[in-house]
C-alpha cells in the first residue's frame, strides 16, 4: 500500500515504527504505531483482541472499526500528514485503504506521576506539583476550578516538536483583549521546536523589558488556579512541569500561595521580610564597598576600625574581594544544582566550609566579606522565582561596581536605575509596578501588608472589569 510506504519513508524506516498487516475477511488492515509513544499492551489488549472478533467486508470496514473499537477519542484520518501527526502523538493507526485510517489513542504512560513541587515548597498548602504531561497539568488545575467558565484553548507549537500548548482562562473574569494578545503572540511563534515552557516565555515578554521577569513560572497547581481566579492567563506547555502565568506584577514575586492559607498578620510580617530580603540582596555588598572605600564617615568609628582590622592582611580591593566571593558562591551554587545527588553534601562542605575558612586564613578575603556576601546571597534565596533571583544577581553586581566607582552616590544612581527599570517594565502592556504605580487602593491590602482574606473581595481592575470576587457574609 502506497500510504504505508509513504509513512515508512517519512519516518526514515525508524526502528521504533511498528507496521503490522492483518488479513481479516480478505481485507488488509495495517496497524501503524510508534513503539515508544504508544502502549503495546493497550493495543494488544483492547484493539487487536477486539479486531479479531469483528466481521466486516470492504464496504463497511470504516463503519465497523469506528463503532466497535473501544476508544472515545477515535478519529478518521484522511490525509497522510494527519497520520504522521497522530503517530507522533502516540495513537495507533489502523490503515484500511489508501489515505484512510482510524486513529485510536494508545499513548504509553511516560509520566512520572504527580510529583511534589520541589522548588516552590509548601508549608500549609497542597503538595502536588505539575509534571510533564499536558493532560495531567490541565487536570490538576481543573480539579481546583470546577467551572464551565474555565476554558482551555490549545494549539501546537514548533514545526518539528508540535508541542501541545494550552491557554487557560476563566471566561467572564479574564479580559478578552489579554487572551487575544496571548493567542496572537503564541500563534506567531515560528520555530522548529518548543521543548519547555521557557521557550514560550521568551515570546510573551515585552521586548522592551530588560531586567525584571514579567512572566511567572510555577509548578504549583493551586498557584495557577489562583492566578486564573484573579483574571490572569495560564499557559500549559506539554513536556514542561512549569506552567506560565501572565500578566504578573513585581509584587507577585514577593507573594507565595501559602500566604493566603495563613493568618494575615503573620504573612504581612513575612512579606516585609521578603521585601527587606529583596533590598538586602541587591544593596548590602554595595553598601559595604561604599562604606569602606568612599563613605568611611558614614559608619561608626568602632565599626570602621573593625572593618579595617579585618582587612589588614587582604591584598585586594574591596570590589575584587566581593567579586571573588560572589563568583565563588555562584560557582558553588551552580555546581550544587548540577551535581548528582549521590555526591551529597561534599561540594557544599568543600566549598562552603573548607574553602571559606582557608581563604580567610590565607588572607585572600576578610571574614566580614564572607558575612556580607552570605547575607546577600541568602536574601536572594527568599524568592522561588529563578528569574527574579537572576535579576537580583545582576543588580547586585551592578551596584557593587557603582559603589566602587562612586560610593553612596553610585548606589543612589543604581537605585534610580532599579526604580526606572521597575516603572518602565510592562507585563502584557500593563504597568509592572502596580498597585504602587499606578496606585490601586483595592490592591494595596494584598501587596506588602496583607489584610484578612475575607476583606480581599475585589480583583485588580487592571486585570479585569469583573472586579467583585465576593460579598460580605
Amino acid at each position, binding site marked *: 500500500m502506497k500510504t504505508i510506504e509513504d509513512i515508512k519513508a517519512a519516518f526514515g524506516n525508524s526502528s521504533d515504527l511498528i507496521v503490522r498487516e492483518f488479513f481479516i475477511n480478505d481485507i488488509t488492515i495495517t496497524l501503524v504505531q510508534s513503539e515508544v509513544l504508544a502502549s503495546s499492551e493497550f493495543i494488544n489488549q483492547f484493539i487487536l483482541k477486539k479486531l479479531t472478533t469483528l466481521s466486516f467486508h470492504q464496504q463497511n470496514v470504516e463503519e465497523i472499526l469506528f463503532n466497535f473499537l473501544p476508544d472515545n477519542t477515535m478519529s478518521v484520518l484522511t490525509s497522510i500528514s494527519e497520520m504522521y501527526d497522530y503517530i507522533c502523538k502516540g495513537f495507533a493507526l489502523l490503515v484500511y485503504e489508501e489515505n484512510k485510517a482510524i486513529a485510536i489513542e494508545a499513548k504509553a504512560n511516560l509520566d512520572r506521576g504527580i510529583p511534589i513541587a520541589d522548588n516552590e515548597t509548601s508549608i500549609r498548602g497542597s503538595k502536588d506539583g505539575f509534571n510533564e504531561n499536558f493532560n495531567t497539568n490541565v487536570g490538576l488545575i481543573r480539579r481546583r476550578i470546577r467551572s464551565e467558565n474555565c476554558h482551555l484553548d490549545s494549539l501546537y507549537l514548533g514545526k518539528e516538536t508540535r508541542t501541545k500548548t494550552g491557554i487557560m482562562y476563566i471566561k467572564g473574569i479574564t479580559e478578552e483583549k489579554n487572551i487575544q494578545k496571548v493567542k496572537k503572540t503564541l500563534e506567531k511563534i515560528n520555530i522548529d521546536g518548543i521543548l519547555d515552557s521557557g521557550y514560550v516565555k521568551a515570546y510573551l515578554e515585552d521586548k522592551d523589558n530588560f531586567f525584571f521577569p514579567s512572566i511567572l513560572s510555577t509548578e504549583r497547581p493551586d498557584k495557577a488556579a489562583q492566578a486564573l481566579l484573579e483574571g490572569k492567563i495560564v499557559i500549559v506547555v506539554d513536556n514542561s512541569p512549569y506552567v506560565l502565568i501572565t500578566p504578573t506584577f513585581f509584587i507577585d514575586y514577593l507573594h507565595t500561595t501559602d500566604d493566603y492559607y495563613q493568618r494575615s498578620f503573620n504573612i504581612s510580617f513575612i512579606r516585609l521580610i521578603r521585601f527587606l530580603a529583596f533590598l538586602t540582596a541587591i544593596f548590602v555588598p554595595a553598601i559595604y564597598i561604599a562604606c569602606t572605600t568612599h563613605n568611611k564617615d558614614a559608619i561608626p568609628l568602632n565599626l570602621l*576600625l*573593625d572593618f579595617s582590622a579585618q582587612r589588614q592582611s587582604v591584598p585586594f580591593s574591596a570590589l575584587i574581594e566581593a567579586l571573588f566571593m560572589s563568583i565563588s558562591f555562584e560557582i558553588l551554587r551552580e555546581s550544587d544544582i548540577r551535581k548528582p545527588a549521590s555526591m551529597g553534601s561534599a561540594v557544599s562542605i568543600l566549598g562552603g566550609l573548607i574553602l571559606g575558612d582557608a581563604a580567610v586564613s590565607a588572607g585572600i578575603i576578610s571574614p566580614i566579606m564572607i558575612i556580607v556576601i552570605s547575607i546577600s546571597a541568602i536574601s536572594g534565596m527568599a524568592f522561588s522565582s529563578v528569574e527574579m533571583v537572576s535579576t537580583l544577581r545582576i543588580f547586585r553586581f551592578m551596584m557593587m561596581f557603582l559603589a566602587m566607582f562612586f560610593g553612596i552616590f553610585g548606589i543612589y544612581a543604581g537605585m534610580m536605575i532599579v526604580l526606572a527599570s521597575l516603572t518602565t517594565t510592562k507585563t502584557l502592556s500593563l504597568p509592572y509596578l502596580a498597585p504602587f504605580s499606578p496606585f490601586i487602593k483595592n490592591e494595596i491590602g494584598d501587596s506588602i501588608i496583607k489584610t484578612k482574606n475575607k476583606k480581599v473581595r475585589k480583583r485588580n481592575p487592571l486585570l479585569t472589569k469583573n472586579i467583585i470576587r465576593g460579598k460580605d457574609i
Partner: protein
Amino acid sequence: MKKLLLFAILLFFCGGCTPYQEVNKMAIVDMIGISYQDNNYHLYLSVTSKSKADDSTKSNHKLYHVTGKSLGEAFSNANYLDQKKTFYKQIATVIIDEDIVISQDKMIFSFLKNKFSQINYLLLASSSVDSIMDTFSNHQQIEQFIKEEQIQKGTIAPMTFDEVYAKYLDKEQDAYLFSIHIKGKHLVTDGICLFGKKDKLDSKEAMVFQLLNHQVERLNTSISYHHKTYALALKNLKVSNVYQDNKIKVKIIGVVSSDDTFQEEVIDTLKEILKQDIYTFITKRQKDKQLMTPYLNMIYLKERNRRKALDIFYQIPIDIQIDFRKESA
C-alpha cells in the same frame, strides 16, 4: 545592550575621578590637638586602629606630631602618616590651645569647618595641648571625663562643633567653649571661654551658667554645716526662667540626697550658698554688661525689643527662688 555597554565603559573612565581609598590603607584620626608655639603651629594627631590577636581585637592609639608655619601647612605635612593616607572624617575630639581661638577665632573656625565634616567635641586647653595629648591619646577617655564632670560638677557639657559654630555665626548670641587643663595625670575643667569677647568664666561661674542654661540635671556638691561636711547629690534639677511683673523669675527645683544623715537645715544652707553663687554671677555679669546665659539673654532681648530701649539690657532685676526637697527614703 549597546547602551549598557556604553554605560559600563563610561563607568570605567569615571572610576579615577572619585576619591577611592581602601579603609585599611588609611590612618584614621580620632582626636587632634592644635597649639601655637615658637611661630609654628603644632598639630598632634591621635591615630586609632584595631589589631586582631587570636580571637580578640585590640585597640591601638599612636600619637603623631607635625608642625607648620600655617595651619594649612601643618595639615599638609600630615597628609600621610606611616605611608597611610590620613583620614579626618571620624574625628571625635579637637583640643585647641585657648590662646589661638581667642586671637584667631575666625581663621580657626573657617578652617575647621572646611577641613572636617564631623567633630563631636571641641574643647579648649588652657595648659599645653601636647601634655594633654600625650596623657590622653584616646578620645573616649576625654569623652568619659566630660560626662563624669557634667554629672559630678556641672561645669562642662558635651558640645558638638556644629553647636558651637551655629552660636559663632549667630550675632545675637555669644559663642563659648569649655576649657580644660591637665593637672598631674588628671584632666580638670577650667571654666568657660567666651572667646568672642575675650572673656572667661571660672569653674564656679561655669556651673551656675550651665545650671541657668538648663544643662545640669544633677550635680554632686559638699557643704559644711556645724563643723561637719556633707556630701550631697542634687537630682532632677529643673530651672525655669520667666519674665513676670517687670522681673526675671528664676525658679530652681530639685531633690537632695546623701549617704549621710542630714537635717532640713543643711538643705537651707545649700539653697543659700547656691542662691549667693547665682546672685554673684548675675551681678558681676550685669555690671560688666556681659553674657549671662543664652536663656536669660533671650528674655532680655525680647524685653528690649518690646520696650524699644537698648539700655534695658542689664537693668531688669532677677528674683531667684530655690525649692529643694529631701529625697524620700
